[in-house]
């Protein structure tokens, strides 16, 4: 490891020397073509010195300012802080500063001369869309950059390349304009012509060369950072799935530009954009990176990464580190951590509830896997809530996702109609939700986070489009299922889906079902009595200890239609005038115009699923 850093530093100097030489050559030739070689040289060096010093001392701030990010404290983003702290412990690096870029495109970068003065910046989109493990993989990658001193190196190189490009550009412009009658002390004769020619060639070739060099170096660094990330987390799948998610995201990171592109984890300039340059990218192809990470099976060292990479034929042919560094890293056999049993082959769905992952979460999930022999009642979902309601007894009731009608307080049993209730604004950032809406959540119906609402394919499950309840829509219980084909109430096979992911969970909305209550008495059956139910308006308190019963919702068996629902040409359901609750056998009229797929029984409160939308 230290060998790699030393080698990195050696190569920094080498490349810096090379570029300086190139710069000198350009400076001399341009100066000579203009008749004053020494001034040209001095100017070139002077300029690069000024730029280098500026970058050295202010580079971080310039980059961060250009990327429009904001430093955050632990209270604002506790989970992010935890993830970074874990990586700081695993790597032995001091804790970097953390910034958030308010952009919904997922990406991240790190900057800093030394590990002590380093900063890691992530976008809001990254926080919203990635799970904890994936976030950890990305952070590990960035801290790998910091440890390998890539940030220092790439910034220096960027400065030199920039100076070079600047001088060449100036010279070319000046020559172009000068050809149309400027005053230039050009040496007469063939010597002068040759000089001009040399200068022109250099001026055209050098920037290209410098850029290509920069890009090649940048790509190697990315591979090395990936390997370092695996070394930190011992879990390559985390980074692999994170890269996959970032790659599939179509959004454009607005604050990025060519100058800062190489600092990000994935090239923020996408091939679909106009400014994407086919000449060369600062990042290796994502598919290759993902393939290498997923193929790693022997261990977590740099050598294992290299072997996998060579076997796949990806990346540069020469090894990323010297033979000695590889041998040193081979001495330690670092076993990879096991993936959770259900994760293999699981398609990427909505984000997992963030507290669930991590080493500990996986271990606990494995224990739950061996234990859970029975299907568990799916609850309203583990999605963090946007706000909460304070009951008279003082306890806070979380607001389940979706559009519930009635919620029962777990402590005192009072029922609250959430459609009309006033929500207590959660105390500032003390909620600790890294959810984007945390600071502003709870006040009425807040607009959804920028990242979630704009995506038609709602990867942020559990955020159905907010509809104003005061408009009195009848389809109160209709939440758009986030993912087609999600079997919401079907009992999940125990071994398959053991983590508290329940990405299916947000598909079912409805009432908060406390699963334990001392008041679990069977509801009084009202045989053949028609209850007036209006699901569009407030139902008011329900009689009797009804809403405390916890039952799995009644799902019509596939292919059968116990409620007698017909579907019209557009696929909208046509309900009969009266419905029967399968649990308590109460009859109640169908609300007019109800087109939903499920609703609560007004007598016993159990959620009835009339049909499944596909």
């Amino acid at each position, binding site marked *: 490891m230290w060998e790699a850093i030393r080698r990195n530093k050696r190569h920094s100097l080498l490349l810096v020397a090379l570029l300086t030489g190139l710069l000198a050559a350009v400076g001399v030739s341009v100066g000579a073509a203009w008749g004053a070689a020494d001034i040209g040289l001095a100017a070139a060096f002077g300029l690069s010195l000024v730029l280098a010093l500026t970058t050295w001392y202010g580079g971080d701030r310039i980059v961060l300012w250009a990327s429009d990010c904001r430093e955050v404290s632990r209270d604002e983003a*506790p989970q992010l802080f*935890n993830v970074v702290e874990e990586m700081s412990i*695993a790597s032995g690096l001091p804790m970097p500063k953390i910034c958030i870029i308010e952009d919904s495109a997922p990406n991240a970068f790190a900057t800093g001369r030394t590990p002590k003065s380093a900063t890691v910046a992530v976008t809001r989109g990254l926080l919203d869309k990635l799970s904890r493990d994936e976030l950890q993989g990305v952070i590990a990658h960035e801290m790998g950059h910091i440890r390998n001193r890539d940030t220092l190196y790439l910034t220096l190189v960027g400065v030199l390349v920039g100076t070079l490009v600047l001088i060449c550009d100036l010279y070319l412009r000046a020559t172009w304009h000068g050809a149309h009658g400027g005053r230039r002390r050009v040496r007469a004769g063939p010597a002068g012509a040759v000089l001009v020619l040399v200068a022109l060639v250099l001026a055209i070739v050098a920037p290209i060369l410098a850029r290509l060099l920069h890009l090649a170096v940048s790509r190697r660094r990315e591979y090395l950072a990936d390997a370092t990330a695996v070394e930190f987390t011992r879990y390559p799948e985390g980074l692999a799935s994170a890269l996959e998610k970032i790659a599939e995201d179509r959004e454009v990171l607005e604050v990025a530009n060519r100058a800062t592109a190489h600092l990000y984890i994935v090239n923020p300039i996408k091939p679909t954009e106009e400014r994407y340059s086919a000449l060369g990218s600062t990042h290796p192809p994502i598919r290759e990176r993902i393939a290498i990470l997923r193929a790693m099976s022997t261990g977590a060292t740099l050598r294992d990464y290299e072997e996998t990479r060579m076997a796949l034929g990806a990346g540069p042919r020469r090894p990323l580190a010297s033979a000695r560094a590889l041998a040193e890293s081979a001495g*330690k056999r670092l076993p990879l951590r096991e993936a959770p049993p259900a994760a293999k082959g699981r398609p990427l769905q909505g984000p997992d509830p963030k*507290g669930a992952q991590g080493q500990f979460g996986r271990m606990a*999930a494995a224990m739950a896997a061996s234990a859970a022999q029975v299907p568990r009642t799916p609850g309203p979902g583990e999605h*963090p*809530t946007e706000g909460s309601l304070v009951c008279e007894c003082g306890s806070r009731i979380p607001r389940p996702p979706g559009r519930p009608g009635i919620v029962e307080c777990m402590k005192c049993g009072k029922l609250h109609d959430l459609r009309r209730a006033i929500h207590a604004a959660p105390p500032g950032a003390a909620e*600790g939700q890294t959810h984007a809406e945390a600071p502003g959540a709870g006040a009425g119906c807040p607009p959804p986070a920028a990242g979630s609402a704009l995506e038609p394919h709602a990867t942020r499950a559990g955020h159905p489009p907010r509809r104003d309840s005061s408009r009195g829509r009848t389809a109160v219980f209709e939440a758009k299922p986030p993912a087609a084909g999600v079997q919401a109430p079907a009992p999940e096979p125990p071994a398959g889906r053991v983590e508290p992911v329940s990405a299916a969970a947000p598909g079912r909305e409805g009432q908060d079902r406390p*699963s334990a209550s001392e008041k679990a008495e069977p509801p009084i059956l009202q045989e053949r009595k028609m209850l007036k139910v209006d699901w569009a308006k407030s139902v008011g308190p329900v009689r009797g200890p009804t809403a405390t019963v916890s039952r799995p919702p009644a799902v019509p068996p596939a292919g059968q239609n116990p409620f007698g629902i017909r579907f019209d040409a557009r696929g909208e359901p046509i309900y009969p005038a009266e419905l029967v609750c399968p649990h308590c056998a109460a009859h109640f009229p169908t609300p007019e115009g109800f087109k939903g797929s499920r609703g609560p029984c007004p007598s016993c409160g159990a959620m009835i699923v009339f049909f499944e939308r596909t």
Partner: protein
Amino acid sequence: MLCGPLAALSPGLIALIAICGFAFLVLVWFVAVRNGFVTRRMQVKNGWAQIDVQLKRRHDLIPNLVESVKGYMGFEKEVLENITRARSEAMKVSGQGAAAQVGPEAALTAALGRFYAVMENYPDLKSNVNVGQLMEELTATENRIAFARQHYNDEVMRYNTSIQLFPASIVANICGFTAEAFFEIQAPEREVPKVSLR
């Protein structure tokens, strides 16, 4: 070759100077290697201190968590009691070094794992804000312990490897540097938590 001032010296003296020079270089190398060992051993100890910090943090978090869920999870009394018991056991041996601490800390990890598994049945509780925060803190602390352990083991491996490679092993033998112990938490027992259906 023997020109200039060297010509005035006898061959014996030249040999002596050469030997002294060589000995000096060996000494410099010796000191450098030994300093390397000391540095790495310091890193090992630092790694251990880091684990200790995280373990203590976990001890502090647990009472809070148990209090928050006690009202709702009264049915799971035995799980909560297990945790409290394991915690007091762990706190008894806290600060006594790796050998003494591994057992109780592993038991605590196992108890917390069972608790976590049982929490699956209380989705309402999980969506409770306070409990969610605490769970996140707990998960983060467990992860931190795991990573601190990983880092510590890495440092131990580096140190152990370096004192075994020849020729540095000579220095290690002379100065008395011995291998350090790894910190392995055995895998939690695969006990099936009692999941009560309601």
